[in-house]
């Protein structure tokens, strides 16, 4: 039962259209700063492209996926029509309008500030207004998810909220709160400067507000992926979810500890005290917990499926898994990339280890491996799983799907592993050109070139992905049957009230935010004389 097919499809298609364009820019960037291409001679073009790529991939694409998937989950899991479908369309319209509003100044070269804003660089105000519209559109989704769950709970007081919806709302709340940081930065600190009401800006405070958003946004991107691990994957491979309670605890842990940890992005920033860097580092380490819980639970679920399929012995169940199933492949690839990316992340969150890779290409390699690798490959898998239910037509290109997933996986490894390596060699990030004839930089040339070819594989993979979806739209109509989420080994008939709602966990999340961010923000607000002149991008000086 899905009443909002068009709504979900519109979200997914807009998301993937944005993704496709931004992917082209990404590969162009890889190419022009590699030794395969003589320098393009205009750095501004490069930063323009990086801004478009980052803003599209970071703000628009995953937000639309989370929104669309969230609406689908609401109807599939709660088995009732979405409440507030009109508002959902308004949200989508806001995101689309915001994306266009932001991209116009970017393409005109008036907002080449990268998606992380980097004050005191100040872009054209329409860039920020566009981003705010995207966030406001997504807040409508946050509210709708909350309202739909509350309404369902009111109607079903004795039943546990279905896991998929519970996890979906966890992601919504996490995003709702984490977006407050960047929204405050943009609306309170940046926009007055961009509009010309002020000419100075407190760059340090802006960075602290941005860090509030910057790390937890990754967990918001991750949520659809984790929801798919828990609620789609066990069903797709013919097994059962090992534990419903562990799944809920994992999502709750994300809500509580994923938010107040962003200062580990500011390890090299002088305006934050070392004590706060330490405490946020501790909580960053805590985020490993829900991920480890997830890896355990999902591997256990896979083992159940393997044994149900006749696998024997300590490893025989692995061979018995349905390896020709796209979901099986996607989750395996996603786990491998999550493993490497997570290991890299442990380095980034360690104060001393971070010093050796801070602001190097290692970081860009890291977040591409996690986001574009582990997370986005599951966005593909989610689309493959949902598409027949959205279009009422079967996806018959199984071989194409597998080739696509393989290519994305191999492409991402080939792109990001050399990328990490050049970071260790000391190659700085956010630079448009490198003089590879310099003996000090020459050793990086080979690795950077390999990355370009990895990016090419990703482009081909994305082409296949679009081919699969478009062929799906052209396939003959067929009834996909009722959409089912995974069933747990022990289906919960009742769960503790703590695992059925978020009141307690949101309280903890906000309390921890106050502990971890309260003082640094108040201190910087109270400090005088720390504003610096704004640098207007694209303005004649």
């Amino acid at each position: 039962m899905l009443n909002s097919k068009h709504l979900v499809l519109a979200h997914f298609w807009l998301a993937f259209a944005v993704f496709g364009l931004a992917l082209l820019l990404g590969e162009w960037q890889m190419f022009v700063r590699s030794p395969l291409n003589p320098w393009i001679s205009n750095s501004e073009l490069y930063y323009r492209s990086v801004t478009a790529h980052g803003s599209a991939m970071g703000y628009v694409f995953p937000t639309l996926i989370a929104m669309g998937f969230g609406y689908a989950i609401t109807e599939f899991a709660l088995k009732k029509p979405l409440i507030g479908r009109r508002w959902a369309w308004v949200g989508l319209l806001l995101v689309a309008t915001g994306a266009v509003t932001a991209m116009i100044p970017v393409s005109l070269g008036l907002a080449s500030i990268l998606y992380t804003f980097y004050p005191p660089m100040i872009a054209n105000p329409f860039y920020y207004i566009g981003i705010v519209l995207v966030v406001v559109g997504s807040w409508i989704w946050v509210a709708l998810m909350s309202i739909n769950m509350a309404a369902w709970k009111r109607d079903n007081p004795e039943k546990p909220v279905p896991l998929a919806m519970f996890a979906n709302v966890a992601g919504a709340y996490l995003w709702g709160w984490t977006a407050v940081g960047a929204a405050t930065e943009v609306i309170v600190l940046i926009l007055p400067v961009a509009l010309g009401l002020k000419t100075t800006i407190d760059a340090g405070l802006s960075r602290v507000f941005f860090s509030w958003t910057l790390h937890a946004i990754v967990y918001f991107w991750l949520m659809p992926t984790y929801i798919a691990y828990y609620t789609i994957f066990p069903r797709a491979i013919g097994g059962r979810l090992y534990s419903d309670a562990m799944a809920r605890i994992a999502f709750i842990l994300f809500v509580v500890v994923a938010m107040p940890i962003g200062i580990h992005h500011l390890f090299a920033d002088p305006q934050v005290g070392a004590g706060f860097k330490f405490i946020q580092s501790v909580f960053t380490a805590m985020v490993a917990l829900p991920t480890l819980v997830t890896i355990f639970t999902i591997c256990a679920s896979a083992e159940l499926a393997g044994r149900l399929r006749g696998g024997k012995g300590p490893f025989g169940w692995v061979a018995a898994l349905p390896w020709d199933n796209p979901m099986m492949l996607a989750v395996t690839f996603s786990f491998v990339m999550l493993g490497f990316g997570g290991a890299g992340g442990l380095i980034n969150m360690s104060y001393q280890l971070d010093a050796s890779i801070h602001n190097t290409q290692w970081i860009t390699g890291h977040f591409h491996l996690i986001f574009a690798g582990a997370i986005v490959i599951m966005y593909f898998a989610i689309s493959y799983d949902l598409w027949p239910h959205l279009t009422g037509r079967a996806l018959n290109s199984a071989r194409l799907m597998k080739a696509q997933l393989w290519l994305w996986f191999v492409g991402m490894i080939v792109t990001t592993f050399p990328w990490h390596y050049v970071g260790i060699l000391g190659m700085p990030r956010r630079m448009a050109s490198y003089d590879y004839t310099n003996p000090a930089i020459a050793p990086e040339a080979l690795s950077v070139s390999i990355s370009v070819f990895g990016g090419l594989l990703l482009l081909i993979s994305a082409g296949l992905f679009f081919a699969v979806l478009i062929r799906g739209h052209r396939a003959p109509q067929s009834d996909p049957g009722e959409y089912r989420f995974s069933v747990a080994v022990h289906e919960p008939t009742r769960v503790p009230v703590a695992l059925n709602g978020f009141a307690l966990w949101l309280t903890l999340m906000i309390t921890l935010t106050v502990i971890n961010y309260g003082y640094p923000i108040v201190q910087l607000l109270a400090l005088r004389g720390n504003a610096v002149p704004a640098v207007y991008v694209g303005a004649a000086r």
Partner: protein
Amino acid sequence: MSAERLFTFRNPWFAAGVGITGAIALLSLILGFVVLPYAATNSRLTSLWDAVCSAAGVPRPTATSETEKPSFTTSNVVMNSRTFGAPDTRSVGRGATLAMQCAICHGSNRQGQVDTPNLEGQPAAVVYKELRDFKAAARTSAIMSPFAIKLSEQDMLDLAAYYSYLPRQPGSHPDPAVTAPQVVVRGAPMRNIPTCASCHGINNAKPGTPWLDGQSAVYIKAQLQAFSSGTRRNDISEQMRNVARQMTPDEMNEAARYYAAQP
């Protein structure tokens, strides 16, 4: 299920959730704000409160509060985007009169000497800053210093307004055959040399930096050498000294020749 009370320590989930989160927060606060500050080998903490303040990042005077005074005069000109507004015509007029004593070396219509910079069309901030620095002896020149010493603040503003009001004249020796050398176009990232145009671009200059196109090669090279050897040190935060020290003599020659050949 809904009858169960959540916000009470009798609820095991509440007790465990709040307890564990609180314990981790408390433990990391103690570690981060007390144990680690004391563990730092260079800590000069006087009390527990001092340790907490240092970890919280409270701005404090450092133990060695007296700063080292340089043996030479440094530039005390402060630049910001509001230093110079639109030129005032009376100021331009006064500047034109004052500039008559400059013309003997700085010429008009590029008739100046090869060892002097061309000032026509330079941003007001450039002329003003250099005059201030000459007057304060942050930059020294046997010829310029005596001129600058007698200038009042308003004289310097007027001269700056006048020269920025004049249109930039085309270069005297344009030579399209001279291609831009590596050090100008790309700088040298590994030696911390940015591209020249990141500050000296004609359309995109940082406040207080002159444009270089069409300037005399002799003058540019002499200034690079002066920055490199430290005989000129009125650049803010050693920006130009840090660049020039890293440049090879060949690169200085190439950069000077390139800019002199610009139209």
